[in-house]
């Protein structure tokens, strides 16, 4: 009896909200696959698993399975999401660095980022320049004034971090010699060994290094206030060309940890997913768990993400030409 009353009350509560009424019809008893375009462990995996755990609550009656589809710097995972059936049962996350891959028309890319069904984003991925404390340099201005090229560590040629270091170099005429091929935290190790002076990376991953006084944030490449007191790269830009290049990096990092589904999802389906995503982002339990895991949050809705992606993709031919140079030097 009690059960019946409770279930009736629950049914009534759910039916009061039109979105959730549609939701329970649409997804009840279904299994959703959340694709993460990297292997298990690490940032993308953590954000993905955290989201799928809590999102289930706002898509009642569903089961969300997490599937890691790593390979070729997120391209394989993004290809997989793009090719999935647009029924709302497959979506996932990938690196925004893929925007460079699409602009550069790299081989292997079988998606058009402007056509994904964007569900939302959980956080920014602020980019910053860190200078090693052992280098003897105290600010970005000192790097700019250096008579000899300053050694910067970067990941492999053609990767997002490499391209961004090149963009910084070209946009602001920074005297840099890039030493490529550093994965993960290897660049920080190289700074500790005093081999290289600086590195461009995501503020979140560089924070422990800065906290342990291995280096300091000298410049924020993202045009936001997430690094208070750190000068912004944009303030050094002298012309439109420089602003355009830096703006591209900034937009990418503001999109950050996104969640997207394949193109062609019915508007009603996408709306339900977006609503559930937004509700998850406001869930106090979700926020507390993200804090415990050290994952910063700065959520935005799917339509905003879509607008930002489209803005990032709309680059004039001269920027694309610059990007091509940056990716291959």
């Amino acid at each position, binding site marked *: 009896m009690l059960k019946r009353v409770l279930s009736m009350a629950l049914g009534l509560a759910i039916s009061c909200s039109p979105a959730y009424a549609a939701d329970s019809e649409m997804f009840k008893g279904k299994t959703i696959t959340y694709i993460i375009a990297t*292997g*298990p*462990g*690490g*940032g993308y*995996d*953590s954000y993905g*698993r955290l989201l799928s*755990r809590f999102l289930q609550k706002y898509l009642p009656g569903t089961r969300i399975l*997490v599937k*890691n*589809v*790593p*390979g*070729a*710097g997120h*391209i*394989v995972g993004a*290809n997989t999401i793009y090719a999935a059936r647009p029924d709302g049962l497959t979506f996932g996350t990938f690196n925004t660095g893929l925007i460079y891959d699409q602009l550069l028309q790299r*081989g*292997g890319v079988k998606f058009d980022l402007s056509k994904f069904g964007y569900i939302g984003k959980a956080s920014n991925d602020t980019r910053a320049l860190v200078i090693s404390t052992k280098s003897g340099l105290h600010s970005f201005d000192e790097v700019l004034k250096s008579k000899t090229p300053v*050694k910067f560590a970067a990941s*492999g*040629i*053609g*990767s997002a971090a*490499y391209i961004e270091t090149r963009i910084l170099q070209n946009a602001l005429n920074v005297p840099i*010699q890039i*030493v*490529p*091929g*550093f994965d*993960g*935290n*290897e660049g*920080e*190790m*190289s700074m*500790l*060994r005093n*081999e*290289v002076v600086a590195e461009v990376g995501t503020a979140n991953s560089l924070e*422990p*290094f800065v*906290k*342990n006084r*291995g280096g300091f944030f000298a410049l924020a490449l993202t045009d936001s206030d997430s690094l208070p007191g750190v000068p912004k790269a944009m303030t050094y830009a002298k012309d439109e060309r420089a602003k355009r290049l830096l703006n591209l990096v900034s937009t990418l990092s503001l999109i950050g940890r996104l969640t997207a589904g394949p193109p062609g999802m019915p508007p009603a389906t996408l709306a339900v997913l977006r609503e559930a995503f937004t509700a998850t982002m406001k869930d106090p339990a979700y926020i507390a*768990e993200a804090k*415990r*895991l*050290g994952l910063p949050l700065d959520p935005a809705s799917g339509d905003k993400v879509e607008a930002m992606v489209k803005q990032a993709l709309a680059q004039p031919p001269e920027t694309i030409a610059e990007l091509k140079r940056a*990716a*291959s030097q």
Partner: protein
Amino acid sequence: MDFAVAVSSLVGILTSPYLLGLMMIGVLVGIFMGIAPGVGGKLGLVLLIPFVYGMDPLAGAVFLLSMHAVVHTAGAVTSILIGVPGEGATAATVLDGFAMTKNGEPGRALGASFGASLAGSIAGAVFLGASLGILEPVILSFSPAEFFLLAILGITFIATLSGKSVIKGLVVGLFGLMISFVGLDPSTGSERFTGGQLFLWDGVDIITAILAMFAIPEMISLGVTRQTYASDAPTTQHIRYDQVRQGLWDVVRHRWLVLRVSLLVAAIGVIPGLGGDAASWIAYGHTVQSSKHPERFGKGEVAGVIGAETGTCAKEGGSLLPTLFFGVPGSSGMAIMLGAFLMLGLQPGPAMLTEHLNIVWSLIWSLMVANIICVAILLAAAPWISRLAYVKTSLMVPIVLLFAILGSYLGHNAWQNLVLIIFLGGLGYLLKRHDWPRAPFVIGVILGKIAEDSLLKAMAIWGYSFFLRPISLVLIAMIIGSIVFYIWRQRNPRVGIVHG
């Protein structure tokens, strides 16, 4: 002080039923992952990480580490009994362990391997615990210049591991090097030997290459000859404990080798940039080179099993530390573990040593305790385990092939790896059939990428002057010494063969 933290951490583990229970599950899973050919520690981690999501950081890390620590120990079982290694590191055990099984000594080989694993993991843990204070300067004194020269030193062992013909060894080794160059060119970012295939952008999967070179050829030749391995062995049904005991005693006899290899490998493991797989092969190369009768290796020399197994187990602790202190993994398995640490909310960095010393010690201890539990289980089960060598061909071949194919597929979720394993497996069978050495291939695949990557970095940072760094000069002397010693030995075949 440190000592008090060390003891209290050990007591903390031993008195916590929760942690011990998790370790026990981890060990059992690890034994399964190790024995199932091709599954291995890295894949084990990939499969288990989703389960620890949301766990308490220490408990999750202890669970994963226990599993990972014993995979190599248990992996020796298939390496020795059926010649099928689980991973790059355990492939070195195949060379002598499998030969011993063919010579009718599977029990002794198992005993020696379990004993060596235990000794290696204990010696490695103690060495690391003792060197915690000086770890940072040691780790920081190794740079891409030294990684490059260490990789070259490892590559010179190809000669030692070539068997009768150095030319054949070099050909196979160079082929391995070529395979290691598949992927994105680090100096231009463009595709190299990928044939436009996305799954090759990250390079040829090492597990697939190893399985193709060892597991597939063994299974084909087993299918062709339709014999079990130990069928011509004198003890056809039961492996008695006296054989196992003999193997354990062999470890005691070779105690100085065990100690030397443990220290060498723990030290190499500590240096991120070289990787654990390389450490095991350098350990095996050192064992052969320092032996008074190198001609016996590859034919069933127990010291070969001991050197290789001590190496694979001692490196675990070594590669854990840079992962914890710098967030830079010391081996490919630790690279996955690092991701798991981050997911558990364990933030690697120098603060681990100052603020979370208890966690560091708990992890070092759990590596050791897990291995003790694992060896105890395996020793108790040794007589039954060794019957694996007598399993019927019609049963063995499909099961091993199934696991090998699963292992190759699951690592990257790429079906294309199955095509690759068939192609390289066919090549491996041809090599086996025509008596060409296969170990140099593994060395080439593992060390090629490290050598290329570090050379490019060293050149970008210092130019040619990197050869003149103090440690570089020592390593160059070791490389020249290794080559000269080899040539001298070839010219004086009787010198050094003391025991005939």
